[in-house]
């Protein structure tokens, strides 16, 4: 293998699994360390800069960081990153707004329109306001937040938490046009904005219009996202006792748990695929199960059955999943009799669609066969140069943190576009390497690896929370429990940097490494090298750190997979060939050089 190029910032970035997995690349280990030092406001700010909504995301994020967490491979469970984020948001100094960037009084003369007031648009506003842009925000709702407001039930995300963080941005001086549904892109283009950002989400819930009985039973069948919005805005306050929720995503989980709170006693989720393939996050499935909601998998709906002018139930076909040699799934009937599940009402949460009926075909914005805009995947620019897309509107339904990441990229693109600079000359990420050694055994970071297991988050009693849909279920960590949880972090941002020219090949690091990840071996192709290391190196998603040839002709090979970042290699090295250096990585922001 060729020697690893550690000059490329992406190498060490990849080692920080959580940060790398986060679409917005939040510096997770750094903010967890700040929490362990009780510097909650500093931790909040680090989050705010990168993910814009720490209080919201600390509750409802899809948490791509947690399955990636190295602790989950070393032990059993990852660090509770998401809940720690909430801890710093809960304990932040309310004067935190003083740390926000100043908004220049003198504007730069560029006007931007944001269509839709969801996380993507708000991020664009947050990034562009400090640069002097004039920003107009349009949304059909009466307040900002987009689907975070209309679809996330209050028992998961209290409205005040959302409103506070949305207002942080609006208070920067965004001109809001609420209760204003944009009906025509042509009209928007005619207003003479320098750039337009479309962050309208994926607003249409998929229906099962082809199923027999669908029309006759319409009064008892609801589209999930519309129904959730109806509940949140107070238009819907009850539901039948027996409810079937069709679908296996997070919306389905929100629907079934909301139904339990509106009077549903026998609420069941029915999903086409096997349980393991459900799209919903594991923890959301668990919380639904805890609220006595069974999940019935491998059932495909066949027909809505109406008896005596009323919905009686739904008929399902039993299936099993078969996979071809390419891993593609097919659901095949088991040949058994159809199953009839009686119910009073049905909620459909079987997916969301993008819809842009308000963008006229002659505007110059091209769409692909799936009805999605044709975009440059990096710059998010559409075929009409001054129009950009982000969030669910760009590539179909994803999640909040992805929308935020899109917002950052779109803001960079818009800033470059408005300055007549090429969109591919994007600012570089900010990186920094800082040595951590203070003495032979003294480090600037807490290098001790605790054995503490993942802390459980306290919850409100089920009997109580099921009676009040506004009552938040999770109570969040208190400071003490949060501190214990924060210390579980393995500090993956503190990198093991190897200086081959100093190594005398004494093997001390390889001997001392508790997880056997350091090796001194003859070089070879990657596959061959992986087979010759002390411990199996089967995790191909994790890099091998390979040095230049050493004195004996061997190379140092470190499998990054389960490195504890415990500093023992550096402490046992007689020549300081191993160095512990904290790698700070922050994605580029609009306006940076």
């Amino acid at each position, binding site marked *: 293998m060729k020697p690893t190029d550690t000059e490329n910032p992406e190498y060490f970035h990849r080692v920080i699994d959580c940060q790398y997995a986060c679409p917005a690349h939040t510096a997770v280990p750094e903010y967890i360390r700040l929490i362990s030092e009780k510097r909650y406001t500093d931790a909040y700010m680090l989050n705010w800069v990168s993910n814009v909504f720490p209080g919201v995301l600390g509750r409802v994020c899809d948490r791509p960081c947690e399955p990636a967490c190295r602790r989950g491979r070393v032990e059993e469970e990852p660090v509770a990153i998401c809940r720690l984020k909430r801890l710093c948001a809960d304990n932040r100094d309310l004067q935190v707004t003083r740390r926000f960037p100043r908004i220049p009084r003198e504007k730069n003369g560029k006007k931007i329109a944001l269509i839709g007031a969801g996380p993507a648009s708000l991020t664009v506003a947050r990034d562009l306001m400090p640069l002097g842009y004039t920003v107009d925000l349009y949304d059909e709702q009466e307040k900002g937040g987009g689907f975070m407001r209309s679809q996330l039930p209050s028992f998961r995300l209290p409205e005040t938490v959302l409103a506070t963080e949305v207002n942080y941005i609006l208070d920067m001086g965004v001109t809001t046009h609420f209760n204003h549904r944009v009906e025509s892109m042509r009209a928007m283009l005619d207003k003479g904005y320098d750039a337009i950002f479309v962050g309208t989400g994926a607003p249409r819930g998929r229906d099962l219009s082809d199923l027999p009985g669908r029309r006759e039973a319409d009064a008892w069948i609801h589209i999930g996202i519309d129904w959730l919005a109806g509940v949140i805005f107070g238009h819907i306050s009850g539901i039948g006792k027996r409810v079937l929720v069709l679908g296996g995503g997070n919306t389905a989980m929100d629907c079934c748990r909301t139904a339990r709170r509106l009077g549903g006693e026998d609420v069941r989720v029915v999903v086409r695929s096997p349980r393991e393939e459900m799209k919903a996050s594991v923890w959301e499935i668990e919380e639904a199960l805890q609220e006595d909601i069974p999940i019935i998998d491998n059932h495909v709906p066949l027909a809505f059955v109406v008896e005596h002018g009323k919905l009686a139930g739904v008929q399902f076909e039993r299936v099993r999943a078969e996979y071809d040699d390419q891993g593609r799934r097919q659901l095949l009937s088991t040949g058994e009799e159809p199953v009839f599940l009686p119910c009073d009402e049905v909620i459909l949460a079987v997916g969301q669609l993008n819809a842009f009926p308000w963008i006229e075909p002659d505007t110059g914005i091209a769409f692909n066969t799936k009805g999605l805009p044709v975009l440059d995947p990096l710059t998010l620019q559409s075929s009409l140069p001054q129009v950009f897309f982000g969030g669910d509107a760009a590539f179909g339904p994803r999640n909040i943190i992805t929308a935020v990441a899109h917002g950052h990229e779109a803001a960079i693109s818009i800033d470059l576009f408005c300055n007549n600079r090429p969109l591919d000359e994007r600012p570089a990420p900010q990186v920094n390497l800082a040595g951590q050694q203070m003495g032979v055994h003294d480090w600037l970071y807490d290098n001790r690896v605790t054995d503490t297991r993942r802390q459980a988050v306290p919850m409100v009693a089920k009997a109580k929370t099921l009676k009040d849909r506004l009552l938040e279920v999770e109570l969040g960590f208190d400071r003490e429990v949060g501190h214990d949880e924060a210390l579980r972090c393995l500090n993956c941002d503190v990198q093991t940097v190897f200086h081959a020219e100093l190594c005398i090949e004494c093997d001390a690091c390889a001997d001392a490494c508790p997880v056997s990840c350091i090796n001194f071996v003859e070089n070879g192709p990657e596959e061959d090298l992986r087979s010759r290391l002390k*411990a199996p190196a089967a995790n191909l998603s994790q890099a091998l750190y390979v040095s230049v040839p050493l004195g004996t002709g061997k190379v140092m090979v470190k499998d990054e997979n389960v490195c504890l970042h415990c500093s023992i290699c550096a402490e046992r090295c007689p020549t300081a060939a191993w160095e512990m250096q904290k790698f700070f990585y922050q994605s580029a922001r609009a306006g940076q050089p």
Partner: protein
Amino acid sequence: MTFFRPSFRHPDLQPNAAGFHRRDYEGGISTLCAGCGHDSICNAIIDACFELALPPHRIAKLSGIGCSSKTPAYFLGRSHGFNSVHGRMPSIATGANMANRDLIYLGVSGDGDTASIGMGQFVHAARRNLNMTYIVMNNGCYGLTKGQFSATADKGSRSKQGNVNLLESIDLCELAIQLGAGFVARSFSGDKAQLVPLIKAGLSHHGLSFIDVISPCVTFNNNPESTKSYHWVREHSEATGTFDFVPFRQTITADYADDTVQEVELHDGSVIYLHKHPDGPDITDRRQAIDNLEDHKAQGVIITGVLYLNPDSRDTHDILNTSKRPLNSLTEADLCPGAAPLEAVNAAHR
């Protein structure tokens, strides 16, 4: 502060044939200087015991005094241990071995502990061919007292301060071969690929397995002009030949028709296949083994690997014809069989 090791190990490491994990053979975290060769030897011992699937509670580790002799704290944390008086490890090992011949004895000593204060002890353990593995962590200097030359420092070797050693050095391997040790080897702490199989072979050999391991003292004796430095040893060593050690439990699949391969079967049925140079010495011949050592010494080359192996090695118990049962398990009834057998013995002499 890192004075303890994290408790996590690589999750994909498999247990050995006896169901033990490698961590079951580990000890505490080392407090030796960073980079000490002794740490590598400790890990080679751990690897060897793990790979041979020896039950940790069947091993007794013994040592004297010195940097080397504190190392039993860093390996085999679940085995029996005895940290004895300076240079007296062989006596303690002899006593323990006499009392319980069933345990596996692993003695660890240094060049000072063996070649100076313990010389009288070492030579007699070799004479008796005591059934134990005797590892000398040989750095050619007294690390605990700031690096003065020890008795194994080569004549002409230069210290970190620039002093030249004027005295003749003691070659422990040569002495051991001369005095009757059944298995004698030399290795280098920086070469685990050779050291681990050597220790495994030593542990399987019946009789004294003496392994002299050159182990650089990074703090006091790792300057380029020292003959016990990483650099010097790597530049000036030559292996007797590569070898394969096949533990007796394993089916022997190797079939060497070649006459460059010397096959030596050990007491427990394990086999060592030595791939030697065509005109290399016969390692089962004591004289050739000593000549081989002297020849290389004259050329300024350190010869490593198995130096001598006696396939018919007889240990102290064999020589003295002691009870096959460990003495510590003999009861009063066994030791004092009563008047009738005594009468019979007496009658036989009338």
